[in-house]
């Protein structure tokens, strides 16, 4: 039963309105009643009491189409707590509006200089809007700069939420129009990313990205050889739970510059999880999504594939705090595993296997994925750890990586040089003997502890067990021609460092060098 209210209701006509309603409702006690208030312009407290009395006989009464003035009155007086009140939504047209962002759940348009509207794709848009509002509020409380929607509007058959973005420009736009600002964008973009990833989220407040990634892996398992499929799943399963925030769709359209402030938008994918999930979605946004068709990124971000690739690479470099290519490639490969898994699933889900292009894409990604799975044993990564082929040619990479890490610890130049000497000794040793005549990998880990400031560099290899400390120190008092060849390097290392220890565990040589700064 729908009852229409129109115009004004105040003490002059409240009695009449009440009579009308009573007449319409007579004999319908207890039946569901909807009060359609779309024609209601104003209601005084005399009118409110009429609504209250109707509700007494019809407890499931709903009021719909309420304009914002009337809604304010109903809200202020506690009516919205007592009964279901549905607001009338302002109608907004997006015809001719600039699209400034597109995410998993909706598209963002600029409706005027200072306002944008995010239009939701889903049928259940109102609950999506509610979800996004809640997570955006949570992010703001946790210190992440973001915009919170202030109004919900009707856009065609769907709903949108309106945000104020005062004179804001997305990073995509800046990259497209001012390529010279690339390095500045990278810095700001990575600073914000680090801030997001350093934010601890109270338990249960945000969905766990691992669950989503597991569902992708389970899906894709059926489309690749069993062994690879099982490995993919076990790699994702081995990622530990992480209660730090990730954005989930962190590309340059979702980072806005408003005056001098960098803002994160499009918050509906906000989750918790290991940063590798974030890097995977970033890889897709800048590379994976456009690998088959390089024009994709131009259409989506407004800049070309080369710009996207450069931005991705520089961002990863800055995020990891290293220009060591081996390290960057290692983490990128892990990101690609999850990235390709997601792309394969998405393409299948969208029914693109029906098209030649869809099948080509899946074939390409699957080949890449299988190659990556073969050489990867973990999706975890650490900023402080470098794994690489133990060959002499890689010494420069190792020195670069260790140098960057100890630079961060404000290491004095003299100690830096000493550490470099020790690192060279040890790495060349491993490269020369650990796997000879074969080749193998070595891991270098740099840890800095405070109070007192100490740098610990750990070398790990899987080569033949060898304790370099077991060898007796050479007698350096002998004249040069009488000394034994070799052994001098490890002797120098012991002298330079404050502590050198060796252990053989789980088939690994572990050599630990400590230097107090």
């Amino acid at each position, binding site marked *: 039963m729908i009852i229409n209210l129109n115009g004004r209701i*105040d*003490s*002059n*006509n409240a*009695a*009449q309105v*009440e009579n009308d309603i*009573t007449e319409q409702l007579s004999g319908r006690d207890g039946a569901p009643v909807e009060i359609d208030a779309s024609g209601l312009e104003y209601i*005084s*407290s*005399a009118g*409110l*009491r009429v609504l*209250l*009395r109707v509700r*007494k*006989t019809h407890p499931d009464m709903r009021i719909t189409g309420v304009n914002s003035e009337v809604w304010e*009155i109903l809200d*202020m*007086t*506690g*009516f919205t*707590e*007592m009964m279901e009140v549905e607001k009338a939504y302002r109608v907004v047209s997006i015809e001719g509006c600039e699209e400034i962002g597109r995410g998993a759940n909706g598209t963002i348009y600029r409706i005027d200089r200072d306002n944008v509207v995010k239009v939701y794709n889903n049928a259940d848009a109102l609950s999506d809007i509610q979800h996004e509002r809640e997570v955006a509020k949570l992010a703001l409380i946790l210190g992440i700069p973001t915009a919170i929607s202030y109004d919900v509007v009707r856009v065609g058959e769907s709903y949108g939420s309106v945000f104020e973005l005062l004179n804001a420009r997305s990073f995509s736009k800046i990259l497209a129009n001012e390529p010279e600002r690339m390095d500045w964008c990278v810095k700001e973009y990575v600073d914000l990313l680090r801030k997001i990833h350093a934010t601890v989220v109270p338990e249960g407040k945000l969905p766990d990205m691992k669950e989503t990634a597991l569902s992708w892996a389970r899906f894709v398992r059926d489309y690749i050889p069993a062994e690879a499929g099982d490995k993919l799943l076990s790699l994702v399963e081995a990622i530990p739970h992480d209660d730090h925030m990730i954005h989930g769709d962190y590309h340059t359209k979702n980072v806005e510059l408003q005056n001098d402030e960098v803002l994160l938008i499009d918050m509906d994918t906000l989750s918790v999880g290991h940063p590798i999930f974030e890097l995977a979605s970033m890889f897709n946004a800048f590379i994976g999504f456009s690998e088959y068709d390089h024009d994709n990124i131009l259409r989506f971000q407004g800049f070309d594939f080369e710009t996207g690739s450069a931005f991705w690479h520089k961002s990863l470099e800055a995020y990891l705090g290293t220009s060591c290519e081996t390290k960057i490639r290692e983490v990128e490969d892990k990101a690609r595993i999850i990235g390709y898994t997601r792309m394969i699933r998405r393409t299948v889900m969208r029914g693109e296997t029906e098209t030649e292009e869809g099948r080509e894409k899946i074939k390409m990604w699957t080949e890449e994925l299988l190659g990556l799975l073969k050489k990867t044993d973990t999706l975890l990564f650490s900023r402080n750890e470098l794994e690489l082929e133990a060959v002499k040619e890689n010494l420069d990479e190792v020195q670069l990586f260790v140098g960057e890490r100890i630079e961060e610890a404000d290491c004095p130049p003299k100690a830096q040089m000493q550490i470099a000497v020790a690192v060279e000794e040890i790495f060349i040793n491993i490269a020369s003997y650990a796997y000879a005549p074969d080749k193998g990998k070595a891991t270098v880990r740099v840890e800095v502890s405070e109070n007192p400031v100490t740098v610990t560099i750990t070398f790990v290899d899987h080569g033949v067990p060898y304790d370099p400390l077991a060898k007796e120190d050479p007698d350096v008092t002998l004249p040069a021609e009488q000394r034994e060849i070799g052994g001098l390097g490890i002797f120098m290392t012991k002298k330079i460092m404050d502590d050198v220890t060796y252990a053989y565990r789980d088939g690994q040589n572990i050599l630990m060098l400590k230097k107090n700064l």
Partner: protein
Amino acid sequence: MDYTEKIDLHMHTVFSDGTDTPEEIIARVRESGIGLFSVTDHDGIKAASAIPPLLSEDGPAFITGVEFSCRDGEGKYHVLGYGYDPDALPIRKIVERGHRLRIKKVRARLELLRTNFGFSFPREDIEELLSQDNPGKPHIANLMVRLGYAASKEQAFADYLNRMKFNSEYVRPEDAIRGIAESGGIPVLAHPCYGDGDQLILGEDMDRRLRRLTEFGLKGVEGFYSGFTPRLCRETLSFAERYGLYVTAGSDYHGKNKMIAPGDTGPVNAADAPEGLRRFLADVKIING
């Protein structure tokens, strides 16, 4: 008096704009299981003398009541008075003054209708109108319909009565409050959040209002009311506490005129009476049959 009993301290009879006679309202009160009631007719105290002789020993108990419509430069108010002596001179004077102002207003309205629209009213109809206890706009509207000047009561209001604005005199809240108190009664602000019934007075506005009225001697607020939401009830009760006021509970029952059940004192149970309601029931003069 046991405060957990069902009470209704805000009801109207035929002496104002209700439809029940004194006998009928007592019957309705009894049927509804109400143990204590008060009749608070608009600007009239006839029920205060008419009801007590009709009470019986097995209840319900009664409190004399009135609801004065007041106004001053700051706004409009409905001031309830409870437990006064209906023979006391101060309250009689306010009722008489109110009645005189009302008659004056009706005359002024009829005169405006005549000069502005050319509607004339037969002498006997005017006599009849003015002889009523509580003549006002609704009565004029009825008359206009009967005489064919308006198709309906609503049209009479919308097209004529509500368009004629003129300055008139009103009973001031301080006069009503003092008159009630000087007659042995307790002055209480009716439905505080709703002002004179058509407004919304919340937060600071309510605070300002109560600060002034308590200076005049206001002693209580109607904290439980059929037209309140839980939020409005809580807000009123918190003001009562802040100002140390009595709390009352009423429905604003009007007989067949409004769909308000006797004893409906709102969504919050008045039986969980706050201290202000208990004090009121302990201090107000209650008449048993």
